[in-house]
């Protein structure tokens, strides 16, 4: 039985500055179904439109052709229904709010009552292992901790879909690996579908059920690589020969994608 896809791209094109001198075809003929509870990574050379793809799902931009469907409705309606949470490359925390109140922000915007949103924010901060930092301010936290706060904020409304745009790109390797472990745990715990944009092969393979390799100019889906590593993943996964095999496969397709783009 095929489940209804959480996200579905149907012949989607995205063209920036259409008709202008600097017209750019960012995405061309994208067809893609993302299944419920799937962790899917998008990887590709810079400028391949992977962030554009994510922003189309979030209805932060509109497709030039084709349709993007989220939970069976138009992406625009899904945004209005608060169907997803989003984590950006930067943590985007407000300095004028405490950590706790940064996590509460979406709940406050949606009009949850105070007791409920405080309770929820505390739980989420526990989950991202930041219990005890409720009353700190963003600038008092390290980059990794700030990004964990932004993950907690994205999960505040318990969305069934989490969009992540290179969230760990600015972190050092060790922090990134630890964050990957935590994200994997959160994903298993919350049963959320995750679309994860990254330029790190190891990160993509470690976290995902499927890795989408894209080529640039115009951005197309080059290959979808299935990652059949057992779940849960952890330290043992990093020693698994199947991991190296999967990384090798992704790397090969990335090379092809780059050759294709050039």
């Amino acid at each position, binding site marked *: 039985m095929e489940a209804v896809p959480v996200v579905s791209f149907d012949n989607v094109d995205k063209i920036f500055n259409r008709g202008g001198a600097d017209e750019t075809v960012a995405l061309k003929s994208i067809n893609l179904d993302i299944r419920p509870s799937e962790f899917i990574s998008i990887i590709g050379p810079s400028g391949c439109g992977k962030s554009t793809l994510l922003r189309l799902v979030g209805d932060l931009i509109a497709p030039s052709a084709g349709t993007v469907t989220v939970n069976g409705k138009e992406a625009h309606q899904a*945004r209005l*229904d608060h169907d997803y949470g*989003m984590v950006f490359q930067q943590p*985007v925390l407000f300095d004028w709010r405490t950590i706790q109140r940064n996590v509460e*922000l*979406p709940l406050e915007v*949606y009009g949850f009552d105070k007791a409920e949103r405080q309770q929820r924010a505390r739980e989420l901060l526990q989950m991202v292992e930041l219990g005890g930092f409720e009353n700190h301010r963003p*600038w008092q936290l390290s980059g990794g901790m700030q990004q964990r706060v932004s993950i907690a904020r994205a999960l505040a409304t318990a969305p069934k879909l989490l969009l992540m745009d290179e969230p760990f790109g600015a972190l050092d390797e060790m922090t990134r690996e630890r964050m990957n472990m935590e994200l994997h745990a959160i994903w298993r715990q919350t049963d959320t579908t995750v679309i994860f944009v990254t330029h790190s092969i190891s990160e993509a393979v470690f976290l995902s059920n499927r890795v989408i390799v894209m080529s640039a100019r115009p951005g197309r889906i080059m290959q979808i690589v299935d990652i059949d590593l057992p779940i849960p993943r952890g330290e043992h996964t990093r020693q698994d020969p199947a991991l190296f095999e999967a990384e090798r496969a992704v790397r090969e397709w990335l090379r092809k994608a780059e050759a294709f783009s050039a």
Partner: protein
Amino acid sequence: MSHTRTYLPAVVLFVAAIVVWELFVQLFDIQQFLLPAPSVIGRAFADNFGRLVSIGWFTTKEALGGLLIGCTAGIGVALITARWTIASETMMPFAIAANSVPILAFAPIVNNWFGVDNPLSKMVIVAVIVFFPMMINTVRGLTLVDANALEMMRSFATSDFRIVWHLRIPNAMPYIFNAFKVVVPLSMIGAVVSEYFGGNRSALGIFITQEAAQFRFANAWAGIIIACIVGITLYAVVLVAERLIIPWHSSVRKQTT
């Protein structure tokens, strides 16, 4: 301890400057009407203290009234136009041009409009002086918002009003405080100088011009000192308010954490 270390050099410099001034006047036997010695000004200040306080307060009320009108209008217009980016962008060049108009030059005309004795004529001058820097800074604060933060608010599918409330206004607060730091001393200058063009006898600007006209320069200087005290006090109030209202901002938090 650390406070002493921060403020001590400034205090020493101030005292030294007064001493040098005093010695300079004494040693070179400078004429009173050119530059009275600090000790003479101090005596004039003490002798006229009651009067100075009352005229100082009169002018301070004009400055505060002008600040209230000008800042409310400046922030208000900025808030209304920031909602329509195009409107504020079209307006900005005009605002910047208007800001470079020497508004004090209008003082005699405004005196004529509202009556020379009416404190409102001074308040209007102060309000107009204060309006443009306040408006320009507030518009900047409301519009120079992190694009990522705007995108995040958009992902929340929230109303423009909430974006203004949760993001644009807090973002504008440091800009508004910077405007206050510029505008508060300007308000005192505006009030005193527009009084030079005529006004109520119990006003500071009138006192300074009249005492100077009658060669009582030490009294005129004492009037200037009152103006300085008021200006510095108002500025200090802004600094304290800034610490209380935006303790999170980088310009403030270095001193508090």
